[in-house]
């Protein structure tokens, strides 16, 4: 089953901590967004494998924009 991890708020992609094929646990940090002068990690909501990373460093992102897809 494909799960999409979306941005909880607008900001800029500051760090990408995983790549396609990585196995992650629930709550693992996947992407770090820079917003409100802070670096806010976006975490996995499930255990799974990363399929696809939809953003790259310095991308400007909106709320609910899909960042990572995992299985």
């Amino acid at each position: 089953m494909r799960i999409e991890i979306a941005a909880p708020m607008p900001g800029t992609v500051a760090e990408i901590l995983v790549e396609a094929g990585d196995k992650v646990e629930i709550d693992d940090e996947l992407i770090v967004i820079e917003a409100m002068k802070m670096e806010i990690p976006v975490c996995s909501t499930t255990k799974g494998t990363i399929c696809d990373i939809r953003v790259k460093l310095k991308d400007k992102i909106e709320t609910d924009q899909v960042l990572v897809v995992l299985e």
Partner: protein
Amino acid sequence: MAFDKFIEKLQGKKEQALLLGGQHKIESQHAKGRLTARERIDRLLDPGSFTELGMLACSDMPGMEDKTPADGIIVGYGTVNGQRIGITASDFTVLAATLSRVHGKKMHDFKQLINQYSLPNVFLGDGGGGRVPDGQGSIGMTSSAMMGTRSIFHMYTNLRRAPMITAIMGNCFGVPMWQACAADFVVQVKGSTLSVSGARALQKIIAANYSDEEMGGWQIHAEHTGITDRTAEDEEDCFRIIREFLDYMPPNNRELPSKNPVPENSGRNMDKILDILPEKRTRAYNMYKIIQSIVDSGTVFDLKPLFGKTIITCLARIHGRTVGIIANQPIVNGGAMGTDALEKMTGFLCLCDSYNIPLLFLHDSPGFLVGKEAELKKVGAKVTNAMDALSQVTVPKISIIIRKSYGQGMFSMCGPSAGPDFVVAWPSAEISFLDPVVAADVAYGSLPDEEYQKLKNQMIQEAGPGPAAGRFFLQDIIDPRETRNYLMNILDIIADCEGGGVGKHLLANWPKQF
């Protein structure tokens, strides 16, 4: 025997009442995946503990006597894990549990008894709305509250003498909505709805096409209105949640919650607590991890987890004792608090203060969300409201400054000068009017870079907890790994104080929704 016939007839009537609105209606209820009122009471209460009042009540409308067993609402006393409670359950199989005079009289009279005896009050809501034609006409309407000139208030009040719990278990309108808004704790079952008016009524009144789900499905309340505290997966989960909530509460507002056994492995992660805090001061982390490390294993009971998410309000236990935790959540919006978070906090202050639960504040927030949207949501009013409530709390307050605590946010989180009985900081604490980097910009931004950097770093230094501790505005700076031990000790001290933590309940009359 002289009265045999009478007894036989009486038993017959009671058996009839147990059949609720009839087999057909019961099957219809089951087909929706829902239990009947009597089944729900049976599942929630300890076996055999139910003492019913008013089984023989029925509608006062001519011709309706035999069609309205218990007039659509079941009330009585029972126990939950040995705790005596009053229970009221809407019977959807009888005229969709609509409100009429006898139905209302049962609710009103029983609620008065429960209040008088300071017993927890559980309402299992299903259906509702005013019954037609019973309430029609001037006699119908003015008599609908049954009891006289002031009795209608029982529908909307909660005197906070003992916890009032409302469960939303069907498509609920009218009375269940008031019971939810007045309650101390609300749980909604997925698939149920809660709104003032229903879709069918709206169609006729304003020709609108909203569904019940759109107006009051579980997500509407869990995420947007904040009227519910928890969402249950199904009815069994709902009963489990109610039992769990009651276990954190005292039996009434004059007593303390019970001291429970401490689960094994509680506090075993304390020595790793510093791993949760990132090295970079601008990096967010998940505050739940800190809470889970500090409290007894498995005892976090979250309230409104999906509403106002920049603040966490949860019950938990530390060394067996119930505490109410208000904590900033850095991973949401950097921990900047909005109006939903303030509402959530105010409600939680009232809950803990009313039921003698000490409050623990964990600070890590840059302050409030500001800007046009915040002003339109009247952030000033919400801040004032929350401070007013905080100023009237008389249960013990413990404040631990984990990291950021700036400006008004510091006061709103019960920081120094805002009334904490116990106030300490972690070495990582940053306390200042403004974020030091922002303040440096404001004050020194126009200076040459080398001087600006020096002054900026000085501001960051001065925001550490040391200077405040030096003036006794902080009682101590603690090793984060000692936080659980510190709290266990403080809770022991509180238990030894006069009253042991029972408050004066100045918030008992605070409005429930604001």
